[in-house]
């Protein structure tokens, strides 16, 4: 799985290509009890490594900045959660509640979700999504959205399997002439 695209004018990051899906066989890791919790500073190395495994780029500054904006700002509706198995970080999800953007009622946005390739098919992404949706619900919103590249069929399939449908919004873009 991979990052989705963050909404809002400030976020022009393109969705990164994701690693190919592992075959439909038992996961490489033995099934361990999964736990979902808020990220801690000591989890960042594992998160950065996981992101680099999928995208091929180590972005420590970027992740430190995300940590400051999301992990330390839960009160503002920002959430950065990790999935752990045997006390090891195997996945993460990041999202936030945004109010009245694009003329929409306040809703939750998921803009990054990832699970280590060797820990997939254990239900970690499902639990991460459920975890962040639960926090969105507590914040009083009843809708969750995400945005991703249409060629990203693996993660599209994941969100579809969770019940997400095409939203009434259409993303638009254009090239800016120099």
């Amino acid at each position, binding site marked *: 799985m991979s990052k989705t695209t963050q909404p809002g004018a400030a976020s022009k990051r393109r969705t990164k290509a994701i690693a190919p899906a592992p075959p*439909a066989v038992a996961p490489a890791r033995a099934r361990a009890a999964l736990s979902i919790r808020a990220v801690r500073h000591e989890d960042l190395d594992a998160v950065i490594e996981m992101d680099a495994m999928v995208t091929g780029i180590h972005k420590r500054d970027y992740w430190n900045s995300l940590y400051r904006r999301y992990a330390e700002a839960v009160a503002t509706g920002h959430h950065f959660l990790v999935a752990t198995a045997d006390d090891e970080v195997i996945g993460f999800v990041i999202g936030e509640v945004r109010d009245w953007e694009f003329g929409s009622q306040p809703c939750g946005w998921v803009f990054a979700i990832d699970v280590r390739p060797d820990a997939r098919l254990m239900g970690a992404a499902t639990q991460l999504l459920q975890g962040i949706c639960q926090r969105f619900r507590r914040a009083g919103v009843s809708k969750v959205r995400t945005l991703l590249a*249409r*060629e990203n*069929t693996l993660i*599209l*399939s994941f*969100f*579809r*399997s969770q019940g997400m449908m*095409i939203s009434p919004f259409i993303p638009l873009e254009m090239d800016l002439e120099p």
Partner: protein
Amino acid sequence: MKLQQNTRLALFSLLEFAADPQRQIPAAEIAQKYDVSSHHLAKVLAELSRVGMVQSVRGVGGGYRFIGNARRLTLMDVISRFEDVLPVEGNHSEATPVGQALASVLSEIDAIAKASMSSITLETMLRIVERQQAGSAAPAAKKSKPAKN
């Protein structure tokens, strides 16, 4: 996106089989449910059997059963077996600026349709069916609930 009848029949059949993969469902049952000729359906089922999505079981109590992976098989996997999903070849009118502009807008629509079809698995479809059934059952149950005195 308008699907041809064979494609629709293939999707209806696969979803019926995948909903109950242990059961062997006679073709006649599907034909009756969707009001189509058994002869027409047989051709579709033969193709699904040939590509290994269903298995035909002969004899008394025979029929077809799903043998694919419902978590992996997408709507596009099925559709592409029955119709051409590549962009339609351009014609002379697309050499004009208006033709090119129209082709570009139509290709946007195709791309979105393909992305949707490629991301929805049979298992996801079955969940959508369940949700719709639950959604339509809820108002009915509410309606039939006796009013409080």
